């Protein structure tokens, strides 16, 4: 596959190129792919591998001419969750980084729009982390609020 040839590593997975990169290589690689026809940035995903103690960032890129999909994967340490921002390469990366910052707490250096995105007034842990227990949170947060008990004749 072209992307594997270009970057010199990676494997094919279900018809798509899966390329494992280190954090320093990622900017150069995206630039290289972008110059070589991978001009559609599909999305930036984040996977939380709790047991391995790392976050995996997956940059999906698509080449319209070669009809090829490349997934560039980067591991970052779960305890030192800082990553360089790629938002200067594609404008929509900014939004993905905002979301990942909010949902996983990963800080992106160089992205200055890491404002609240989907959540408002969220003082708790980033919710998409595997160690955030949604069910427990629901119980604490929503189920503890009492019903309004009033005269049944009023309302309803």
């Amino acid at each position, binding site marked *: 596959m072209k992307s594997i040839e270009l970057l010199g590593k990676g494997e094919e997975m*279900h018809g*798509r190129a899966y390329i494992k990169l280190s954090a320093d290589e990622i900017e150069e690689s995206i630039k290289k792919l972008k110059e070589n026809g991978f001009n559609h940035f*599909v999305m930036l995903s984040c*996977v939380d591998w709790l047991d391995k103690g790392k976050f995996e960032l997956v940059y999906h890129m698509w080449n*319209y001419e070669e009809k090829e999909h490349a997934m560039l994967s980067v591991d970052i340490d779960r305890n030192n969750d800082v990553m360089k921002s790629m938002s200067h390469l594609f404008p*929509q990366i*900014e939004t993905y980084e905002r979301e990942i910052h909010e949902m996983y707490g990963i800080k992106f250096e160089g992205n200055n729009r890491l404002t609240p995105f989907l959540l408002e007034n969220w003082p708790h842990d980033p919710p998409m982390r595997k160690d955030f227990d949604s069910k427990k949170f629901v119980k604490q947060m929503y189920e503890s609020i009492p019903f309004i008990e009033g005269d049944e004749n009023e309302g309803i």
Partner: protein
Amino acid sequence: MKEYELFIGPQHPGITGNMMYHLWVDGDTVTKAECNVGYLHRGFEKLMESRLWMQNIPLVCRICVPEPDVNEAAYSMAVEQLMDWEIPDRAKYIRTIVLELARIAAYLMAIGSYAGSIGIYTLPQWSMGDRDYILDIFEQLTGARVYHIYIWPGGVRWDMPADLPRLIEKTLNYIEERLKLYDDVLFENRVFFDRAIGVGKIPCNKAIEWGVTGPNLRACGYGYDVRKLEPYAAYDEIDFDIVSYPDLGKFDAHEAGDVYTRMIIRRLEIEQSIAIIRQALKKMPESEHILKHPNWLRWKVPEGYAFARVESSKGEFGYFVVSDGGLKPVRVHVRGPSYTHGINVAEKLLQGANIADVSQILFSLDICPPDIER
């Protein structure tokens, strides 16, 4: 302070659902626009991580409300990739028909709400009513109007009833007739030309870099369509041409990437979808409709990364599914087309737009907030 601030949404007639654009306006020109989403954030991705592979099917369809079937299809395809399944031919054709019907329904809705945004309330009334006949088909096929939960990993939930093709044919003929009326009211209306031509132009050389997909990209002159690029379902066996900018059939081509072209592309793709459905009905083979499933409760999907994409009425819908070989997915990440259209593209298009055009630009981009925030 020169500018005043306007909020388009969440409670506003001119917004495409529950989201908000925060506009800074000088006189009647928007100088800065900021998209504010999250009003519909239900944490689907988190929910899916705590549900079984099969349990996620009812969840995913809630991600894009006007056209839920693409989610089911994309999720199923991603799971099928992981499982290395090849689905039966009949299921492929049924999926094609269902997806195209959903596309027509979504386009009718998009055209109707766009027409509402420029003030012609006759067309939404007609197109929403006509869309209901497609929902009737769905009701007969799947038992539900909106959330069908019909496309499953491995095929479709049950076979198409024998008399349904006749009903589909009848409905398609009806909609074809109605399209002529739509042309009279909107697409050949002089005031529509005045309003839409040259407004909200996506710069064509930037379109791909900005992540524009689907009809919006085709309006910029790039004939890219996932149905052709990565044919799924039965699209590789069906003969159809992609509608893209300069070649707009009976409509005049004006400027690439503006509101007018985007809406005309949508209008033409309804006809295209009708043709596809007719072909699919004709070619549909007889076979099983679904593969044999393992026990859902103990269904483990092999480890790996899979990405499936489908062409929805709004653009490219992608599902990134990661499995560690367990009962539940490790991660399901949804790439909604509105993610780029609604935030980066819309913010850039709205800058410098007239406040009278804000709503029509948003509706012509066909932004659907639930697939931004999930």
